[in-house]
């Protein structure tokens, strides 16, 4: 799949933003006044910024409101509804903390559940796709959730919780990569099943339908960059988890804490890039590519 910057920025920052909203919602921490304002501002900049980035790749962003209508069947529609509902609920909860020094606990928990649902529905947009065997697995929603919650723990200053969550997230990511590498072959979809010509013999793509490229090839076939996947995986794990854990163990005071955050975000961006760049769509088989 084409690793479009808009979706990488969207999944990374919205994931972190909603992760932070989750911890704020359950009252860990439950600041008031200006401190609360700062926490909520960071959460909203990431969550809303990510959502806005995701609209950059739309052909007609002005019609985006229509996307709230098909929640019965569409995970993308469900995600839109969860995302906006959570932002509204948490805005009221945040206003209580900032202006009235009051924590409306029930509202906070409702927002926290909404934040988790938003991340889950986002992950299901990818996990539902049978056409991308690497994504169609329980590890996709599990990873999106653990990455969001662990990143949120870091942003919300829950250091003692962030460290074990990072260890779990790193282990799950490593497992997802290891298991995901074999899923395209295990899916049973081959150039023979795609063309139905396997009963004659070995099928090879001889001539593409055109001399140039097309939307399908640009969107679904991404070969450049996969070459360095192994190195990038190590970079992503080191930046995303190992360095933040070491910095947090050294004491998560201001500068070290900021460095941990920067390192973690860079690591997540790298592994999200891999999430798209390494995902292979079955339509590539028609072009003799993956």
């Amino acid at each position, binding site marked *: 799949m084409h690793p479009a910057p808009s979706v990488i920025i969207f999944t990374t920052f919205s994931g972190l933003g909603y992760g932070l909203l989750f911890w704020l919602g359950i009252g860990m921490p439950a600041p008031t006044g200006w401190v609360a304002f700062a926490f909520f501002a960071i959460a909203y900049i990431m969550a809303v910024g990510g959502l806005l980035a995701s609209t950059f790749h739309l052909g007609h962003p002005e019609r985006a409101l229509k996307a709230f209508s098909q929640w019965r069947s569409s995970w993308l529609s469900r995600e839109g509804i969860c995302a906006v509902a959570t932002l509204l609920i948490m805005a009221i909860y945040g206003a209580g903390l900032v202006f009235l020094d009051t924590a409306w606990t029930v509202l906070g928990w409702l927002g926290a559940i909404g934040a988790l649902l938003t991340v889950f529905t986002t992950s299901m947009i990818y996990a539902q796709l049978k*056409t991308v065997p690497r994504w169609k697995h329980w590890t996709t929603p599990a990873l999106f959730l653990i990455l969001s919650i662990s990143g949120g723990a870091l942003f919300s200053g829950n250091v003692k919780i962030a460290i074990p969550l990072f260890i779990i997230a790193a282990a799950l990511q490593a497992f997802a990569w290891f298991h995901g590498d074999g899923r395209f072959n295990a899916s049973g979809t081959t150039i023979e*099943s795609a063309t139905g010509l396997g009963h004659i013999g070995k099928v090879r793509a001889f001539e593409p339908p055109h001399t140039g*490229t097309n939307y399908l090839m640009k969107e679904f076939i991404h070969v450049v960059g996969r070459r360095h996947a192994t190195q990038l995986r190590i970079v992503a794990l080191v930046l995303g988890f190992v360095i933040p854990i070491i910095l947090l163990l050294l004491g998560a005071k201001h500068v070290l804490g900021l460095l941990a955050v920067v390192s973690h975000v860079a690591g997540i961006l790298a592994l999200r890039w891999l999430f798209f760049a390494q995902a292979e769509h079955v339509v590539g088989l028609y072009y003799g590519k993956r």
Partner: protein
Amino acid sequence: MTTLPPPSAKKLGLVIDLDTCVGCHACVVSCKGWNTENYGAPLSDQNAYSGAASGTFLNRVHSYEVQPPILKDKPAAPAQLIHFPKSCLHCEDAPCVTVCPTGASYKRVEDGIVLVNEKDCIGCGLCAWACPYGARELDEKAGVMKKCTLCVDRIYNENLPEEDRQPACVRTCPSGARHFGDLGDETSDVSILVAERGGFDLMPEQGTKPTNKYLPPRPKDVEPEYDILAPYLEPVAEDGKGFVGWLDKALSALPGGAK
């Protein structure tokens, strides 16, 4: 609503004969022509007159080389070149429809045709992600998803002569490799064709239950290769007579001449 309707009794679709398709791309051209000039946004091209041309097509013809297995006791059968037209298969369990967040994608209750309401499409591209066949292409200029309409504006169009009330690709195919009809009706011509020729689904493991069917290439003859005319041809003269004979000898006598 992007939830799928219950399976319709009428299932309009195409049957594509891989045995007779000659790979001329006439269906590609006629499809692009009809669908650019009629229903919906035109099918745009990008950099059409450069080395990096690309564009939106609803129907594309791939070509595959198929190498029969090499058996121990027989000489290897020659590889076959098979031309392979591909457009929307109007699946019964169309994954492209259910993922649509706006309701722009839908499957018609009355005949099973999968369509896009371009006024509702936000161009998110998720339906193209969900389609295993590459049947949907986002038009770069219009910003909306384009796909085969089964020429819904031809097949019911009473302003056209009756013989033209079929998809443009079917109407134009010079080798009769494309057939249009109701695959929900077991007695229809296309259903009989599928039954007799062993028509198959593409990527059945994806569970999309496509309406369109493909007919396999017929087995190739295994007759030994020989030239029918060879015994009747005059043998080529080995030694010339008369002037040619003299010339042959004279040239051979020169230094370095052929003996």
